């Protein structure tokens, strides 16, 4: 059964230069306990998609379509109901752990407060729970570290704290927005291992541009380009049998596969190209690609691609 289903989602930002179509017609679903990877270049709209799910966007954002979570359309509920879902049902682990913790509040207190937002606990019990959470994310001597401030933690430790905070209320779905950004390789591996362990019983949407991390953690992967999904399939399918030229280009740009860059730049989200959005950069471009916008087609069981060529 699908825990989260996104139907025809559009998230547009009105600006003085025009409408920024950050998320444009996305359909996807995440089932319970599944880890779904969302991969794309910087600026393709993947973070906006993550934020759209819990409606954590500026107030003038235009959102259309449906986001069905446990049978409820999250775009139709009130802000107060949304607040109860954030953290309690759907939690977000943000990028940049260094700036995502309040510098003037102790780490233990921040986790305890996150718990108290949703659970009726007194301060002492919440603090105890916070220490347990710190222990769960493998922070050594948690009861002592809980009384320290964020600046006394290293980057990797801060990311552990962010994970502890996100999971404090035991949400069913975790949205992790580039959780390994800015961490060096050894720490990255530790964080990936930790996240795999603590989110084993949960559904997760992993937003990243790191295919290595995605392949390690995800069940399915979707490639996002210029506001839309271009291909999605199981991890094995994506790596063994990629169909979309963008996916192929993305894989070829990996250090292990020759470091071949995709020529050109991703288009402006205000002024998208006609036809296929990838055609100006595509090596297999055909006449039809310039004129018609390809739809999502199922090529194999569960392997969808948006390309005329495939």
């Amino acid at each position, binding site marked *: 059964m699908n825990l989260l289903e996104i139907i025809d989602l559009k998230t547009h930002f009105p600006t003085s230069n025009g409408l920024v179509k950050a998320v444009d017609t996305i359909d996807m679903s995440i089932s319970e306990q599944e880890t779904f990877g969302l991969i794309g270049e910087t600026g393709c709209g993947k973070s906006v998609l993550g934020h759209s799910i819990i409606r954590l966007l500026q107030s003038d954002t235009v959102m259309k379509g449906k986001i069905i979570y446990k049978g409820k359309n999250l775009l139709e509920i009130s802000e107060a109901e949304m607040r109860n879902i954030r953290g309690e049902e759907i939690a*977000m682990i*943000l990028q940049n752990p260094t*700036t*995502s*913790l309040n510098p*003037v*509040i102790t780490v233990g207190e921040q986790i305890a407060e996150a718990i108290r937002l949703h659970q009726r606990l007194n301060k002492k019990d919440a603090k105890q729970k916070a220490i347990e959470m710190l222990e769960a994310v493998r922070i050594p001597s948690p009861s002592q570290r809980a009384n320290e401030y964020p600046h006394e933690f290293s980057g990797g430790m801060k990311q552990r704290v962010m994970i502890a905070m996100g999971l404090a209320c035991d949400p069913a779905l975790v949205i992790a927005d580039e959780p390994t950004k800015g961490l060096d390789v050894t720490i990255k591996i530790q964080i990936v291992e930790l996240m795999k362990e603590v989110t084993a019983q949960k559904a997760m949407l992993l937003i990243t541009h790191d295919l290595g991390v995605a392949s390690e953690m995800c069940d399915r992967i979707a490639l996002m380009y210029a506001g839309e999904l271009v291909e999605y399939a199981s991890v094995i399918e994506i790596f063994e049998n990629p169909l979309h030229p963008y996916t192929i280009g993305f894989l070829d740009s990996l250090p292990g596969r020759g470091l071949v860059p995709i020529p050109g730049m991703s288009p402006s989200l205000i002024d998208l190209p006609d036809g296929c959005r990838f055609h100006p950069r595509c090596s297999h471009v055909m006449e039809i690609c310039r004129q018609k916008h390809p739809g999502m087609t199922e090529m194999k069981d569960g392997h969808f691609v948006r390309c005329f060529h495939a």
Partner: protein
Amino acid sequence: MKKHNNPFMDNIRRLSDSRPATVGAIIIMLLCFIAVFAPQLSPNNPTTACLEDRLISPLTVPEYPLGTDHLGRCVLSRLLYGARISLIVGIIVVGISAMIGIALGVISGYYGGGIDAVIMRFVDATLSFPSIFLAVTIAGLLGRGLPSVIIALIVVDWTAYARISRGSVLSLKETEFVESARSLGASDCYIMTRHILPNIIGPVIVIGTLGMAYVILSAAALSFLGFGPQPPTPEWGAMLNAGRMYMRTEPYLTIIPGIAIMVMVLAFNLLGDGLRDILDPKKTVIE
């Protein structure tokens, strides 16, 4: 480097490294001590007039160490009691102004839009008058006495806190820890009180300490002009005014309260500058 786990203790230590701030803090503590124990420290009753002993010069009679004024009241006793009034006025005005200013500034910065425009135009309008002129006008309208001085100074003073807190909130509300709090289900009210407020306390403490100096000086000025507490209340500004008539013959009557005002204002300015140095992240010394 000795490491304190508590940032408050850390700041106290850094403050004590600054000599001017230490001097300021010591003088303020001394003045507070004087204000609290004025009845025990005063040699005479500050309001008892004794016309036989009028206009005695300082350091001439042991009974009146700093001499007597034109009504024969002990200048030292009046000075000590005067510290009480100045400090109380300062604390009340700064406290209430800060509360009003922070509340309005945070709301203004956080919500933006129409609320922001209304509050900030009101601030601009208040600031477009010379502050002492506005205070004189308000004190004049409300009539003489300490309460009208306090109200007049609050009306002038709250704008500084509103501006500084609005400015801080504008940058704080875009920070990732606010976004993070929101992603965990925090409400606007919770974010303002739990996440934003603790982060603006630093600049507010600086403005408040420097504001104490300004308020004490303004209160003395209003008293000097006759809007403040009425005789025989011992107030430094009023003492200055009363001594004005005898400036040629008995200059100590103006010099002594003048020095008292100067010392108190200077002490708050020294402490305020020191606090600004340690609380301003741009000036933080990396140890």
